[in-house]
C-alpha cells in the first residue's frame, strides 16, 4: 500500500471519525445521567412511574437499535415528527443507551445494602444528600465494568448511523473502498476503531483505579 494513498484518504476518514466521536460523546454525556434518573424511577415506590419506565426499558432493549434508528428518522416523519439526520441519530442512541444504563444502575442501586440508607436516615441526611454522597459513589464503583462494556459497544454501534445516511467513520471508509477498489480504507477504519476502543479501555481502567480506594 502506498503511504501517499493513506495520507490522501486519512482526512476523509478523520472527518468521519469526528462525527462518530460526536455521537459517542453526546450519547454518553446525556444517557448516563438519564440512565441514573430512570434507574431511580425504576426502584421508586411510585407504581405508575415504575411501570412506564419498565415498558420503556423493555422496548429499548427488546428491539434492535437499528430498527429504532430507522423508526426515528424514517418512521416518525409519517406522523409529523421530523428530525435532522444527526438529531435523529442522537435521539435514538440516547434513548437506547439510557435504557441499558438504567438497568445497570438499577442493579447497582439494589446491591447497595439497605443498611447504608438506614445509617444515612438516622443521621438525618436527606434523600438527595444520601444518594449523592453515599449511594452514587458506591454504585459507580459497582457498575464501572458493565458501563465499560456498553461504552465500548457504543463506539462500534455508532457505525449504525450509516443507515440513515450520516457520514461517519464507517461510511467514509466504505466510500473510499468502493471508489478506489482497495481494502486499505477498510483496514484503516478498523485500525481507527481499535484505537478508539483502546483509548476507552485505558480511560475506564483509570476510572476503575480511582475507585479502588474503598471496598
Amino acid at each position: 500500500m502506498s503511504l501517499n494513498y493513506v495520507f490522501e484518504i486519512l482526512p476523509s476518514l478523520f472527518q468521519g471519525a469526528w462525527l462518530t466521536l460526536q455521537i459517542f460523546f453526546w450519547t454518553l454525556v446525556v444517557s448516563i445521567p438519564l440512565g441514573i434518573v430512570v434507574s431511580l424511577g425504576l426502584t421508586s415506590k411510585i407504581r405508575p412511574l415504575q411501570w412506564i419506565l419498565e415498558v420503556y426499558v423493555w422496548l429499548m432493549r427488546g428491539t434492535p437499535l437499528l430498527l429504532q434508528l430507522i423508526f426515528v428518522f424514517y418512521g416518525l416523519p409519517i406522523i409529523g415528527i421530523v428530525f435532522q439526520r444527526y438529531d435523529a441519530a442522537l435521539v435514538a442512541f440516547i434513548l437506547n443507551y439510557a435504557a441499558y444504563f438504567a438497568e445497570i444502575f438499577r442493579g447497582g442501586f439494589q446491591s447497595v445494602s439497605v443498611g447504608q440508607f438506614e445509617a444515612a436516615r438516622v443521621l438525618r441526611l436527606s434523600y438527595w444528600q444520601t444518594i449523592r454522597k453515599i449511594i452514587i459513589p458506591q454504585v459507580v464503583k459497582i457498575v464501572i465494568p458493565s458501563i465499560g462494556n456498553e461504552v465500548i459497544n457504543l463506539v462500534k454501534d455508532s457505525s449504525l448511523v450509516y443507515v440513515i445516511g450520516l457520514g461517519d467513520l464507517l461510511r467514509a471508509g466504505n466510500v473510499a473502498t468502493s471508489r478506489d477498489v482497495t481494502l486499505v480504507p477498510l483496514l484503516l477504519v478498523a485500525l481507527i476503531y481499535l484505537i478508539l476502543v483502546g483509548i476507552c479501555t485505558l480511560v475506564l481502567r483509570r476510572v476503575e483505579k480511582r475507585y479502588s480506594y474503598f471496598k
Partner: protein
Amino acid sequence: MLEVKNLKKSFGDRVILDGVNLTVNDDEILCIVGPSGAGKTTLLRCITGLETPDSGTFLMNGQPFDPQGTKDSDRVIGVVFQDFNLFPNLSVMDNITLAPMMVLKETKKDAEKQAAQLLSELGLSTKGDLYPWQLSGGQKQRVAIARALAMKPKILCYDEPTSALDPNLRQEVAKIILNLKKSGMTQLVVTHDLDFAQEIADNLLKVKPID
C-alpha cells in the same frame, strides 16, 4: 430521660411488640435483654425511626417527639448498628463529619475538630484518614459510635454491640460504654447476652417472644 409508652408493633397479623413501656434515665444505661426473635431489634428500630410503630408515645425529658421527624427536637437519638453500617466510600473522618456538616450545617473546620476530639477519646486518633475496610471490627464499632455522637444525640442506642465482634472484645465494648456513661451519655443497649448486660446496666428490661 427517654420514655416509651405503650409501644405496639405487628408485622401483618404477627404481634411483635404488645404495649412496651420503658424509661431510660439520664446518664444511665438501660439494657434490653432477650433471646433472638424477642423483638429487640424491632423495638430499637421503632425508637430510632426506622420502623413505624402501630401506636405508642415517645417522650424526651417529658416532651413528645417523633422518631421519624426532621425537626431539631426530633433529632435526639443516635444509633450504633449491629454491623455498624459505616459508609465504605468515606474515610473515617468523613464518616463522622458528613452529617454534622450537611445536617447541622457545621463548618468543615468545626466538624473536623469535634471529630478529632471524639476519635482521640475513643483511641482512634491515628485512624482518621483510613477507610472502613482498613479497620478491625472493634475499630469500626468505635467509628460508628463517634459518628453517632457527632450529631450530639441525647441518647445513644446500640443493637447487639457484642455480636459482630470477637468474644474477647466484649470487655473493650463494656469499657467504652461505661466510659461514655461517665462522661454523661445516656445509653440504651439491646443484647441477647445477659452477662454482658448485667455488667453494664443500671436497669435491665427482659423481653421474650410473644406467641
